[in-house]
């Protein structure tokens, strides 16, 4: 059943930064971070050093917190969920999204994937949020548990392998 966190290997695509190799990939790594900043779900493509992505996600949490505090001091309601580009690195760009319950979605995309536009990132985050909500609605899911939903896994897989 659920792949749990070990499901990284499942995202099959050969996603490497090789341009033109196979279908364009959307995301390299997708992570769902709980309010207390522990990961609920993290998955990255297998070809890369996954630990590196974990580190990237971890460091991006600071940026997320910074953005949240900067934006949401008095306007929590008006704060936009989509945080945008958190920080770019040489090879990757990290995007962030935070829900009203302080659950954060972090997505790492390949910098060479220039076809990715902001709207696409937003739509991907929206899908993530939808799927996450579906997971939440499952009475058998205890908030704070690792996300082990097949539907969620499939959705993430679709985002990590091919263009939506």
């Amino acid at each position: 059943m659920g792949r749990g966190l070990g499901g990284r290997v499942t995202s099959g695509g050969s996603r490497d930064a090789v341009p033109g190799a196979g279908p364009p990939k959307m995301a390299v790594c997708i992570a769902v971070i709980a309010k207390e900043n522990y990961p609920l779900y993290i998955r990255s493509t297998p070809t890369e050093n996954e630990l590196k992505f974990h580190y990237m996600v971890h460091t991006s949490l600071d940026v997320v917190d910074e953005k949240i505090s900067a934006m949401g001091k008095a306007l929590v309601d008006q704060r936009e969920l989509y945080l945008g580009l958190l920080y770019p690195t040489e090879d990757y760009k990290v995007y962030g999204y935070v829900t009203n319950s302080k659950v954060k979605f972090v997505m790492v995309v390949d910098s060479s994937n220039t076809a990715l536009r902001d709207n696409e990132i937003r739509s991907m985050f929206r899908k993530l949020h939808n799927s996450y909500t579906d997971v939440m609605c499952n009475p058998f899911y205890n908030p704070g548990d690792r996300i082990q939903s097949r539907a969620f896994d499939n959705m993430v897989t679709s985002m990590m392998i091919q263009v939506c």
Partner: protein
Amino acid sequence: MEGLTLSDAEQKYYSDLFSYCDIESTKKVVVNGRVLELFRAAQLPNDVVLQIMELCGATRLGYFGRSQFYIALKLVAVAQSGFPLRVESINTVKDLPLPRFVASKNEQESRHAASYSSDSENQGSYSGVIPPPPGRGQVKKGSVSHDTVQPRTSADAQEPASPVVSPQQSPPTSPHTWRKHSRHPSGGNSERPLAGPGPFWSPFGEAQSGSSAGDAVWSGHSPPPPQENWVSFADTPPTSTLLTMHPASVQDQTTVRTVASATTAIEIRRQSSSYDDPWKITDEQRQYYVNQFKTIQPDLNGFIPGSAAKEFFTKSKLPILELSHIWELSDFDKDGALTLDEFCAAFHLVVARKNGYDLPEKLPESLMPKLIDLEDSADVGDQPGEVGYSGSPAEAPPSKSPSMPSLNQTWPELNQSSEWETFSERSSSSQTLTQFDSNIAPADPDTAIVHPVPIRMTPSKIHMQEMELKRTGSDHTNPTSPLLVKPSDLSEENKINSSVKFASGNTVDGYSSSDSFTSDPEQIGSNVTRQRSHSGTSPDNTAPPPPPPRPQPSHSRSSSLDMNRTFTVTTGQQQAGVVAHPPAVPPRPQPSQAPGPAVHRPVDADGLITHTSTSPQQIPEQPNFADFSQFEVFAASNVNDEQDDEAEKHPEVLPAEKASDPASSLRVAKTDSKTEEKTAASAPANVSKGTTPLAPPPKPIRRRLKSEDELRPEVDEHTQKTGVLAAVLASQPSIPRSVGKDKKAIQASIRRNKETNTVLARLNSELQQQLKDVLEERISLEVQLEQLRPFSHL
């Protein structure tokens, strides 16, 4: 314990037996009594039976679920075949004959019994719960196996019949998958590879695939891991049920048989046809589910909240993970609650899961809640399943958004609204072109004319304006306000109009500022005439007579320009002393001098011509006549200058012009209001210039139209007060000077001049404002021009 792989015959047989034992029609749990009877009928030693029950998990569970039952049957077969009773043996033992149960009561039973070794002693010992005697089973097995050898053949012989008997409908509990799996017995168990329940599912997805294909798939699949759940089930072998099965089996044989016979044809049909939906809920099952639903939620149309459902399904002892997945599949609308349909689907999935079926990736069609919004099919599992073994083929996985429309809608709104907000903020920049409206309007609060009213031909009006000017000083009902009020209407013509309006703005009411505003040359012309008349009526008015109505459309503008210019000239210099001049001076048409960038120039020039034609006539005797020539000269020069200025069209230039031209315009203003009009470009400046000398009339036109008598004296008076004016006026026969011989006359003249001075001063200020407005108008016009000629700069 490994998953149980059953052959087709076994499938059918087991299903039959299960249904037989399922006297309560629960479709899921067989009565322990019946099971025990059946097991007793298996003629196995009690300990074996107990062991079987323990192994299959019934004991642990306390009841015989389908899986337990099947396992038990398999174990019975194993035991009867003489193999050691092991968990693994259910699968490892190949070619296991069907378990044989001693049929005691009916022919079916006897048929079964025939295949069984009549181990009556076992039967007896089976009554009641028998603790699983692990060891003893071995002994029995030997005997059993021996016994079973014989029956095997018979069993095999029976198999052709039994498979036919496959309970397609009789075993309400068993998903019809069992049927599918039951490949048509080719004869003998040996032929059929044992396939686990897991593989059974593969053919489900390929509903259309033939049984052979399904078989292939079956063989390809290993027993699914869920079968391990059976281990959990196996903890509670309801030995009692095993024992009770036997006696019951005898009785039910007939029913099973009849049912089996009934289903035979169906099965044949089904097998020949494409696979039926393995997930279909039979009526019995449905009824059972509904009953269960009622226990939780009496209202069949209501929902079962997630928490209650969670408790209920947790009782099934499935792993939370699987329950979570079942929930994901069954909660179609993702609302955290289960409707009756959803509940039945979930229940069905639980049953299937407990029987060892792998959960599908997507909700099978037959399990989908029959809701309107689901007709388009969406599968719960929105992603491409690993194997499309569900009845619902892999349709385009509908995103969850339909199920959560509100959520999806809000998010785009959230995103978009924020963007929109930002956009709106950005776009909040307002143009400044129309700002001068507000400036202008308040400047002339008294102006009655709010919009360009074209013509005021009556000199009385001009006079009135003059009087008002004297009184209020800032009374400008004139046209200026209308002129000013219509900044948006600025066009090329408006520039001139504005200039006119400036000229007349501060002048008497009589001046129809509207004249200058309206691009109508006629109006302008009328204004000019008005001015003229005004000037005529108030000869000794120090206040500049209101701009006479423009005589002619074309002329008016030009006249207004000239007027403005003259006025501006004067204002540029000083007070509006000079303003008086232009109005007094009959504007002489100087079309030649007004080539101007503006179209209205020529038009205005025409008007000027008429004006001048009239004005001179009106003031033939005025000493200003002499000035006219001077004014003309200056007008020409001014026109040129103004033309240049206009060409530049820079507000900065205008003020400069104002400064430079005032002097010239002073003179020009007197005679050449037309020039002002002509110079539309420097209209604003001209306007100011023009208007200043003649305090009231912001519109040069009016000045032009003003009777020269009025203008002259005004001009004369004004000029006296200002040095420049004096200089200008010097050219004119200074009537006041002549009058000044007399002290009284001088004093009177001084007084008058002072009054005029004040009036002109006010005019000046107003004209300055008008100038600004006109400058803004000019800017707007320039912008419009640019827009109209977008490629001019290319």
